C-alpha cells in the first residue's frame, strides 16, 4: 500500500498499467469492432509494448519526462485517436508534476484534471458524447473530492475507479456523437464505449499497483 508515488513507482505503475491493458486488448478490440473499426486491440498491444520498450531508457529521468515520453512512445508506434489522446493526457499530466518528487492524492487529482482538459481541448467532445471522457471526467472529479476529504491515496484511487466504472457503464445506452462511431450513431446504442473502457482499465491497474 503506497501513500505516494516516487519516480520509481511511476515507472513501475506505468509498466503495470501497460501489461494490464495488453492483456485486455482482445476485449477492447471487440468493443471497437462493434461500434468502430476494431483497431483498438492492436493499438493497445503495439502502443503499450512501445511504452514498455521505452521505460528502461527513462530510468533516472524526472517524472514529467517519464510521463511525457511514455505518451509519445505510445503514439509514435500506435498513432490513432486513442494514441493521440493518450499522448495528450500524459503530456498534460507531465506538466502537472513538474518539480514534484512524490505524487500524492492532490497531485494525482491535478494530473487527472489536466488530462481531462487536454482531451477536451484536443477532441472537442464532452461528457455524454460516448467517449473516454465519460469515464475520465467522473474519475477526475472523484479524485479532487477525495483529495479535499484528505483520504489515503489508495482510497482516493479506489473511489475514482468506481466512478470511472459507473461512467463507463453509462456509455452503453448513449449514441456516439464524435469520432468514427458517430457515423453509425444509431447502431452504437447498447455497446459500451471502448475508449471509456480503456480508461477504467487503466485506473483499475493503477489501483492494483498502489494497493499491492
Amino acid at each position, binding site marked *: 500500500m503506497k501513500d505516494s508515488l516516487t519516480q520509481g513507482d511511476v515507472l513501475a505503475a506505468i509498466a503495470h498499467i501497460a501489461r494490464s491493458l495488453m492483456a485486455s486488448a482482445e476485449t477492447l478490440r471487440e468493443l471497437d469492432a462493434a461500434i468502430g473499426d476494431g483497431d483498438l486491440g492492436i493499438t493497445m498491444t503495439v502502443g503499450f509494448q512501445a511504452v514498455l520498450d521505452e521505460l528502461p531508457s527513462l530510468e533516472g529521468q524526472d517524472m514529467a519526462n517519464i510521463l511525457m515520453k511514455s505518451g509519445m512512445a505510445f503514439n509514435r508506434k500506435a498513432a*490513432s485517436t486513442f494514441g493521440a489522446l493518450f499522448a495528450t493526457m500524459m503530456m498534460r499530466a507531465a506538466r502537472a508534476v513538474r518539480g514534484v518528487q512524490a505524487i500524492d492524492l492532490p497531485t494525482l487529482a491535478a494530473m487527472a484534471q489536466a488530462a481531462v482538459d487536454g482531451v477536451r481541448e*484536443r477532441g472537442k467532445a464532452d461528457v455524454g458524447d460516448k467517449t473516454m471522457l465519460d469515464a475520465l471526467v467522473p474519475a477526475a472529479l472523484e479524485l479532487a473530492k477525495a483529495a479535499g476529504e484528505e483520504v489515503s491515496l489508495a482510497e482516493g484511487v479506489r473511489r475514482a475507479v468506481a466512478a470511472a466504472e459507473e461512467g463507463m457503464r453509462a456509455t452503453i445506452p448513449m449514441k456516439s456523437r464524435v469520432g468514427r462511431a458517430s457515423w453509425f450513431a444509431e447502431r452504437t446504442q447498447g455497446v459500451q464505449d471502448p475508449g471509456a473502457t480503456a480508461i477504467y482499465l487503466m485506473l483499475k491497474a493503477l489501483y492494483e499497483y498502489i494497493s499491492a
Partner: protein
Amino acid sequence: MKKIINDPMAFVDEMLEGILAAHPKQLRATRDPRAIVRADAPVQGKVAILTGGGSGHLPVFLGYVGVGLADGVSVGNVFSSPSAETMLEATLAAHGGVGCLYLYGNYSGDIFNFDMAAEMAALEDIRVETVLVSDDVASAPRENWQKRRGVAGLFFAYKVAGAMAESRADLDEVVRVAKKAVAQTRSMGVALTPCIVPAAGVPTFTLGEDEMEIGMGIHGEAGVHRGPLESADRIAERLCQAIIPDLPFERGDTVVALVNGSGATPLEELYVLYRRVHQILQAEGLRVYRTYVGEYATSLEMAGASLSLLKVDDELIRLIDAPACSPFFVQM
C-alpha cells in the same frame, strides 16, 4: 489471405522501400522513413501542402505527392493514422518558408495527430492551416456535412489546392480554394467485398455472396443500405440520387465527375457504371466538364466503386485543368 507480401508487420515499410526504389527522381524520404516528400522539397516560396493518413488507399495519400499536388505525406500503418512526429518531420522537410496547408480526410485519429504536429510546427514558427475533406454523404446528414468522413473527393482537393500552391499563391488563397473544393464535393460508394488488413489477417467486415453495401466507408465502415447486389445501372442511380440533391447540384451546373474503383473492381466495370452516371447527369441538366475514371482512392483489394462530383466555376476549372505530376497521377 491471398496476398503478395512478406511479413505482414513489415508491409508498409517494404511498400515504401519499393516506392522509393521505383521513383527516386520524384520522391524522397526524410529522417523519418514514414515521412516522404517531393524530391525537390522544400520548394522555397511555395506553400507546402502536407497530407497523410493510414496506408492501404493508394494512390491516397502518398500517390498525390508531386508537382501541382501535395509536397509531403506522413504514412501510417494500414488504415491507421501516422504519428504527430512523422507529420512534423514531413512538415519540416517540405516547408518552403511561406506556410503549410494540412489537407487530409476527416478522421479523428489523423486530426488529433496532425493538430499536435501543427502545434509543434508552430513552435518552429511555421504557420499551418488545416482543411479537412468530408465528402462522403453516407456518413452524416446534410446539415452536418463537415462531420462526414473523407473519401475519394480527396483527389479534387489535392488537385485544386495543389494547382493553386504551384502558382505561388499565398497560404490564405490556397486555404480558400481547398475549402471551396471540399464544400463543392459530394461522394458515395458501394462495396461488393471486404478487404483484409495484412496485420489482422481477417476481412474488415462480412457481406453475403450476393450482397452489396451502399455508402460503405473506405475502411469498411458501415453504409446506409445493405441489400442484394444490383445492376450497374441501379447502383449508378442510387449513388446519383444520394449525391445530387445533397449539395445540391442543380440544372445548369457544371461538374467534374470521378468514378473511383476500390481495388479489385476492373476498370471495365467502372466504365459500365459511368455510362449510366453520365446519362443521369445529362438528364438532370448537369454539364460534365471532365471525367476521371480509375483507382484514385482504394481500400486494398476491396471490390466496389464510388462516385464523386465536384461543382466547378471558372476558377475551379482552371485549377482542375492545371498540369500535375506524381508517380501515381499525371495530367498534362
